[in-house]
């Protein structure tokens, strides 16, 4: 099976090359037989990649340590779930995994949209296959997971214990699913540009796949934050590290596109812009990979530096060049069909939303590549860190948050004064009251106050929208509260799913702002000694050291300390932090010792205990921090995921298939205004 897998990989490369060639030839000569052959070539590529993947999984699960990849990433004492996920934990495996997802996506995308898109299909298939060919070739020649050692080690090196965490098992595949999904919109954008069929049709496919990409990136990013928070022990979840940034960039452009596409659907505007956004998401996904795999940028996420960097750079340059050429030669076909009518309109709000999202993306991009640029321009490598990213992104983010509230409520074309009053009176008062209340309670930091006032405002708009919609259904259809809610959301998935996503965003912003009140204490505690302090809410805490204990489970040696915690004199439990040293079956130490953080979570704050080290057998060095509102980051991420699911739910697709494209757009139109374009 392993040998079959390896051979399949090479066959897949040939298949992808075939599919690329005949698809483009079929598109250019308009020959249906060539186009069909190209599509079949893509399907075959998927089958071959699947075989190769099964081969690698077989090697991992049968612990065939003669493969360098297997020996380098698992050990015989590891839990089997992590042996399964070791597939994508290393460079070579993740390249194969990427190809697997892309070929699967490509197959699904082409198979589900063949009917009615005959002209686009050959170009889209060709583009997907070309991207696929690149990934398979890189895997075959530069990062082959089937490379063998010429001896068979007794045991493998195992997986870093920090990666043996449920969050880490599903975080990378989610990111890959998100990254790779940007390739499908890209392929259809290229196809639409080639064929000059830049009407609404290609957009419906593109929107669906962008949404999917957005959805998985959201999950991937939030899981990554969660993993960093619970495993790495630095007490935060986002460090503006280049690798984090590069996952955030396509998320931002995807988000921008999902908003601006509404303007194109309703008003026929922003047609060039939308093509650019689609292409940008894909290029940023590739750029992110280039960045992290090439070692150009210093990052704490140092993946083994590898020879795939230059390949990615070349691919990135080619893809950018082709796109610029195509867009430049087709500007005339992308003329807008309408003009902006007023600054006080939903179009304008969405335009500013896009401007801010891209502004944020640009600032992050700039800060990430600045070390390279500055070295190139001035011979001095200058780095920027979290202060830069916060200084730029906090104000832009707050403006964006304000637009999250304004956009959905303001009328299309031109809002009247009465529209503004009717829609904004309540939410604006909620926002102002929230701000005033917090000010009265003693909160003074201006950014934080503004953030919470805006959170109140946006939440007010969302609740008002749901309330109005449900009231209308209750009066018109005589439905109960629950039925009204279900029908309201179910029959306007895009709109109300979107609001739910916004609610998640508000929770995230509230949580981010809460971190401004984080408190940290470095303490040294002997057995029985106590440390007293107060949390950001003014509650008195007392931590009593329970002493240092050791234990030896099967695959590790554990030294830990427990703290008995009291809040305002009441015992809340024991918070334990440990240092673990993992060993393989031969009792050799694997990796450096890792720290297990002790976290006690409540809605208001996390009590976060990190064991820094030992002074002697009795005395532990600890960092005890209070991280306010952290749980709302995970909750917000979960709510965004639910909102995304509601928007994507397939029933909407079925109705689209029955009723045609435009009819589906109507429910999304705020209150059923006429559909433009």
């Amino acid at each position: 099976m392993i040998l079959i897998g390896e051979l399949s990989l090479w066959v897949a490369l040939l298949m992808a090359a075939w599919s690329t060639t005949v698809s483009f030839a079929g598109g250019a000569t308009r020959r249906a037989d060539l186009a069909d052959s190209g599509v079949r070539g893509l399907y075959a590529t998927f089958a071959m990649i699947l075989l190769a993947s099964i081969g690698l999984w077989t090697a991992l699960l049968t612990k065939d340590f003669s493969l360098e990849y297997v020996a380098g990433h698992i050990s015989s004492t590891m839990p089997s779930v992590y042996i399964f996920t070791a597939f994508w934990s290393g460079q070579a495996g993740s390249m194969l995994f990427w190809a697997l997802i892309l070929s699967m996506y490509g197959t699904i995308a082409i198979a589900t949209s063949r009917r009615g898109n005959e002209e686009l299909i050959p170009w889209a298939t060709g583009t997907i296959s070309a991207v696929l060919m690149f990934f398979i070739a890189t895997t075959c020649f530069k990062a082959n997971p089937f490379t063998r050692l010429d001896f068979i080690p007794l045991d493998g090196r195992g997986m870093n214990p920090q990666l043996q965490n449920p969050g880490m098992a599903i975080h990378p595949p989610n990111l890959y699913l998100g990254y790779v999904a940007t390739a499908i919109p890209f392929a259809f954008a290229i196809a639409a540009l080639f064929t000059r069929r830049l009407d609404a049709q290609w957009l419906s496919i593109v929107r669906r796949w962008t949404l999917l990409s957005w959805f998985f990136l959201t999950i991937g990013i939030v899981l990554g934050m969660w993993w960093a928070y619970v495993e790495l022990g630095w007490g935060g979840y986002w460090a503006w590290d280049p690798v984090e940034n590069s996952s955030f960039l396509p998320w931002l452009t995807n988000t921008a596109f999902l908003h601006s596409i509404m303007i194109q659907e309703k008003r026929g505007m922003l047609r060039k812009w939308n093509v650019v956004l689609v292409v940008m998401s894909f290029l940023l996904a590739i750029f992110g990979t280039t960045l992290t795999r090439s070692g150009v940028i210093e990052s704490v996420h140092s993946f083994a530096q590898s020879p795939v960097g230059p390949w990615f750079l070349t691919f990135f340059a080619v893809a950018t060049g082709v796109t610029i050429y195509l867009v430049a030669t087709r500007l005339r076909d992308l003329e807008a069909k309408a003009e902006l009518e007023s600054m006080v309109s939903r179009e304008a709000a969405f335009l500013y939303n896009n401007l801010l999202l891209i502004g944020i993306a640009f600032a992050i991009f700039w800060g990430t590549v600045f070390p390279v640029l500055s070295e190139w321009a001035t011979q001095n490598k200058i780095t920027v860190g979290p202060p830069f990213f916060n200084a730029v992104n906090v104000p832009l983010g707050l403006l964006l948050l304000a637009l999250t509230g304004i956009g959905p409520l303001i009328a299309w074309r031109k809002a009247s004064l009465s529209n503004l009053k009717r829609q904004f009176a309540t939410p604006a008062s909620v926002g102002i009251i929230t701000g005033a209340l917090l000010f009265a309670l003693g909160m003074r930091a201006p950014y934080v106050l503004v953030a919470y006032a805006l959170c109140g405002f946006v939440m007010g708009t969302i609740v008002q929208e749901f309330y109005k919609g449900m009231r209308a259904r209750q009066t018109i259809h005589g439905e109960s509260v629950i039925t009204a809610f279900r029908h309201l959301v179910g029959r306007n998935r895009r709109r109300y799913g979107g609001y739910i996503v916004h609610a998640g965003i508000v929770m995230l912003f509230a949580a981010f702002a809460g971190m401004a009140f984080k408190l940290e204490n470095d303490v040294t505690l002997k057995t029985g000694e106590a440390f007293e302090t107060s949390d950001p809410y003014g509650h008195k805490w007392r931590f009593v050291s329970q002493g240092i204990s050791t234990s030896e489970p099967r695959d590790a040696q554990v030294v830990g300390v427990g703290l008995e915690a009291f809040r305002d004199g009441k015992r809340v439990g024991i918070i334990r932090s440990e240092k673990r040293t993992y060993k393989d079956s031969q009792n050799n130490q694997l990796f450096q010792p890792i720290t297990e953080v002790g976290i006690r979570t409540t809605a208001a704050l996390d009590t976060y205990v990190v064991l820094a080290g030992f002074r002697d057998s009795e005395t532990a060095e600890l960092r005890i921090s209070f991280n306010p509102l952290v749980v709302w980051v995970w909750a917000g991420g979960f709510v965004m995921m639910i909102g995304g699911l509601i928007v994507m739910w397939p029933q909407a697709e079925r109705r689209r298939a029955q009723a045609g494209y435009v009819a589906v757009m109507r429910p999304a139109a705020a209150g059923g205004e006429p559909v433009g374009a």
Partner: protein
Amino acid sequence: MKPRTKFLIGGAIVLGTAGYLMASSIRSTGVYYLTPSELSAKLKADPTFTDVGVKVGARVVPGSVQRAAGGKEYAFRVTDGSQTIPVVYRGIAPDTFTDSVDVVVGGRMGTDGTFHATELLAKCASRYENAPEKYRATPGYKAAQPKTGGRA
């Protein structure tokens, strides 16, 4: 004025503000990223360079890490092969910080010739993936060059 023009003016203001924020915060928060050799070259050229916060990327000299009895103070040396700098760091070191890893230390060069770090990032190729050369050198494994299977 046409709404389009108004929008463009608004957009220019937003982007201008963003640009200004970016430029000003790069000036105020950007720090030099240097190798030990570059740092000592800069110090030779300009002795007041000790006042500037810098980041130094280098490899820890094996065996040089000393932990003060207090526990949270580390003294070690970093090198880029040609220049070696002593470093003192107070704080919690990341799990990945051990002998001979690549580190980035942020702080100031003291007039005493010791680098006072307030920030310590350890990057270790084996953190997410075992570097092949390291893996082969592991005691107990026979040193060998891997070769591509299948065609062997």
